[in-house]
C-alpha cells in the first residue's frame, strides 16, 4: 500500500465511481442543511419528482437569519420568517430531521454538528456553507458546496468532484499566553493570502496544532476557506476521541470500539508526500488584528496600519488603498489607537463555550467602555445553556454586554444584528469584507479575548500584557 496523507485516505475510501478524465463520484456521509442555501434545492427535487435519498444522513437547522432576541418574540422580518417556514415545510415533506427555532439543539450548523456527535473522524461532510471546513478539525473531509450541489447530494447522497491537491501547514512552537487559535489561523492566512490554498485541502500539523483543544482546532479549520482552501483538517487523536465519546449521535458500545480502531489509522503516513508545505512558528506569533477588507489584510496588535505603497503587486496596492479608505484608516496609525463602536463575540469561528469562558475572564469586574455597544451571541442553545450554568451570562451582562440567543447573527448580518454605516467593530467572526456586517460597516477580525479586552478598553489592546500583569 503506497504512503497516503490523511486526506487521501478519506478520499479513496469514499470514491463510488472514478472516471478516467473526469470528476470522481464520492459518497457523502453527512449532509447539513440550513435555511438560506436549501430552498431552491428542495424545489428542484420537487420539480423533478425526486426524493431525498438518505434523509437519515441529512440534518437541518435554522441559523443564518434567525433573530437573536428572545425566542418568545415574533420574527419581525416576513421574508426571513418565510425562509424559516419553508425549511420546516421541506424537512417535513422530505423526512429530514430539523433542529428548529425552539429546539434545544438549534444553533449555528458548524457548532451543532460537532456538539451532537454528527461530525466524526473519517467522514465526508458537506453543507451549503463555505465554513463547513470547520468539521475538518475532527479528521473529516468537510467542505462547502453551492445550492445545485446541495440538490445533487439530497438526491444521490453523492457528489461529483475533482480530487484537490494537498497542502501541509505545519505550526510548531509554543505560543505566548494571549495568542490563541484565532491568531494562529489569521497568521497563516496573512502568510498564504486569500487564494493561497485554492484547489487544495490543507492538513494542519505540528506540535502547536497537536496541543490544541477541539474547539481551537475548529477555529483553525473554520477559517481555512479564508485562505482559499475548501477543506482543512487535523488528524484525530485522544483529544478528538475524548470530545466525541458519549455525544448524542456518536457510535456507542461495540460500534464505538470498532470505530475508534478505524479512526486510529487516520493519520498521514510517515513517507506520504504533500504537494506543498508551509511552516510557521507559533512561538513568534503575536495577537492579530485585521486592518483591511480581506482576512489576509492582517497585522500584529503591536503594529501599525501598513502603507499601500509598500505592497509589491499593483493589484494589492490598489486593493490596500481602497481598503484603507473604506476602513477609515491612515497608513502608519498604531493598531492600538483604533477606537471602536461595536464588539461582537460570536459566529461559527468563535462562539463555543471555551471562547466565551476566556472572553468572560477579560471583562469580569470591568465595564464596557463608554460609547461601545457589545454583544455576545452563543453558537448554539447548548452552549448558551452551559454558559448560563456557569454564570457567564451574568458576568457579561454586568459588564455591559448584551447576552443573546444563538445564531449566525452579526457575522453576516442577515438578521437584524447589523452595523450602522461607519460603525467600527471588533469581531470574532471570519470575514471583514466590505459591507459584510452591514452597509459601510467596518470590521476588524480578532480573537475572543482580544475582542473582550477591546470592549472594556474602547480600543485594541495587547492582551498579552493582561496576562503578565
Amino acid at each position: 500500500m503506497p504512503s497516503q496523507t490523511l486526506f487521501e485516505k478519506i478520499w479513496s475510501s469514499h470514491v463510488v465511481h472514478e472516471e478516467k478524465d473526469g470528476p470522481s463520484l464520492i459518497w457523502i456521509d453527512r449532509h447539513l442543511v440550513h435555511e438560506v442555501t436549501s430552498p431552491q434545492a428542495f424545489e428542484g427535487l420537487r420539480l423533478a419528482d425526486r426524493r431525498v435519498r438518505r434523509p437519515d444522513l441529512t440534518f437541518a437547522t435554522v441559523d443564518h437569519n434567525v433573530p437573536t432576541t428572545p425566542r418568545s418574540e415574533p420574527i419581525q422580518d416576513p421574508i426571513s420568517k418565510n425562509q424559516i417556514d419553508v425549511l420546516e415545510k421541506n424537512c417535513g415533506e422530505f423526512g429530514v430531521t430539523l433542529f428548529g427555532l425552539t429546539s434545544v439543539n438549534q444553533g449555528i450548523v458548524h457548532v451543532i454538528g460537532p456538539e451532537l456527535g454528527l461530525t466524526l473522524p473519517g467522514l465526508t461532510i458537506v453543507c451549503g456553507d463555505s465554513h463547513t471546513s470547520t468539521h475538518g478539525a475532527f479528521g473529516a473531509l468537510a467542505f462547502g458546496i453551492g445550492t445545485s450541489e446541495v440538490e445533487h447530494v439530497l438526491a444521490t447522497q453523492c457528489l461529483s468532484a475533482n480530487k484537490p491537491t494537498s497542502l501541509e501547514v505545519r505550526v510548531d512552537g509554543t505560543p505566548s499566553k494571549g495568542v490563541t487559535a484565532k491568531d494562529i489561523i489569521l497568521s497563516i492566512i496573512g502568510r498564504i493570502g486569500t487564494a493561497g490554498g485554492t484547489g487544495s485541502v490543507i492538513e494542519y500539523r505540528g506540535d502547536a496544532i497537536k496541543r490544541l483543544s477541539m474547539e481551537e482546532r475548529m477555529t483553525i479549520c473554520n477559517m481555512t476557506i479564508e485562505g482559499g482552501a475548501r477543506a482543512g483538517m487535523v488528524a484525530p487523536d485522544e483529544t478528538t476521541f475524548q470530545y466525541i465519546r458519549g455525544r448524542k449521535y456518536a457510535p456507542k458500545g461495540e460500534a464505538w470500539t470498532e470505530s475508534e480502531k478505524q479512526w486510529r489509522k487516520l493519520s498521514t503516513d510517515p513517507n506520504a508526500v504533500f504537494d506543498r508545505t508551509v511552516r510557521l512558528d507559533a512561538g513568534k506569533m503575536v495577537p492579530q488584528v485585521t486592518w483591511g477588507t480581506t482576512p489576509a489584510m492582517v497585522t500584529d496588535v503591536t503594529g501599525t496600519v501598513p502603507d499601500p505603497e509598500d505592497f509589491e503587486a499593483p493589484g494589492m496596492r490598489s486593493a490596500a488603498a481602497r481598503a484603507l479608505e473604506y476602513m477609515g484608516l491612515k497608513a502608519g496609525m498604531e493598531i492600538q489607537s483604533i477606537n471602536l463602536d461595536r464588539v461582537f463575540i460570536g459566529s461559527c469561528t468563535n462562539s463555543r463555550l471555551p471562547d466565551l469562558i476566556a472572553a468572560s475572564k477579560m471583562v469580569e469586574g470591568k465595564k464596557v467602555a463608554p460609547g461601545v455597544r457589545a454583544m455576545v451571541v452563543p453558537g448554539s442553545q447548548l452552549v448558551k445553556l452551559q454558559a448560563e450554568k456557569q454564570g457567564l451570562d451574568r458576568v457579561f451582562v454586568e459588564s455591559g454586554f448584551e447576552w443573546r440567543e444563538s445564531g449566525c447573527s452579526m457575522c453576516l448580518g442577515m438578521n437584524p444584528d447589523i452595523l450602522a454605516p461607519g460603525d467600527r467593530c471588533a469581531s470574532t467572526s471570519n470575514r471583514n469584507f466590505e459591507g459584510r456586517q452591514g452597509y459601510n460597516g467596518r470590521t476588524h477580525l480578532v480573537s475572543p479575548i482580544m475582542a473582550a479586552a477591546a470592549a472594556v478598553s474602547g480600543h485594541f489592546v495587547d492582551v498579552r500584557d493582561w496576562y503578565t500583569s
Partner: protein
Amino acid sequence: MPLDRVNVDTDQIIPKQFLKLVERTGFGRYLFNDWRFQPDGTPKTDFVLNQPRYKGGKILLARENFGCGSSREHAVWALADYGFKALIAPSYADIFYNNCFKNGVLPITLNEPTISQLFDEVEKQESFSLQVDLQKETIRKPDGVELGFKIDEFRRKCLLEGLDDISLTTLHEEKIRAYEQKLAPFQVINVGV
C-alpha cells in the same frame, strides 16, 4: 465589461440582504448592489455596470481570486440573471468556479499578462468586444487574434450538451448501492443505543 479589482468576494457580488428569496430567479437586479447603487437606490455613475458604453455586455473581465468567500450560489444566479454568459479572470475561488458550471456560466481562466492586456484594450477601444467559442475553446478579439483557453473536458461537455448532473450520477446507481451496503459503523447514524 471590465471590473478591475482583485479578490472580489461573493458578498460584493450579491450582498446578504438579498439571500432571503426562495427562488433561483430575479437576482440580477441586486448584482453588485452596494457598489452599483447609493443607499437610496440611485445608480453610482462611476461603477462599470452603470456606464452606458458597457450596456448589454455579456462577458465580465475580472481579476484574480474572483468569487472568493461565501458558497452562495446566488452570486452566480445574479451574474447569469443580469445577462453574463462568460467570465474571464486569472483565477477563481473553488466553490464559485463549480457553481458557475451548474448555471451555464463559463468561467474562463487566462494568464495575468493576457488579462492585463485585455483590460488595456477594452479601456482604449469604446466598441471593444470578444467572441467566445466554447466548442473550439477560443476567444476572438476584434483584431482577429484568437486566444486559447482550456476547460475540463467533462465540464465542457456538460455545458455544451446541457447535461443534468443528477441524471448523470443516477447512471451509476448500482455502484452507489454497492457502496451503501458496506458503510463503516461510524458512517451510519447511531441513535438510541
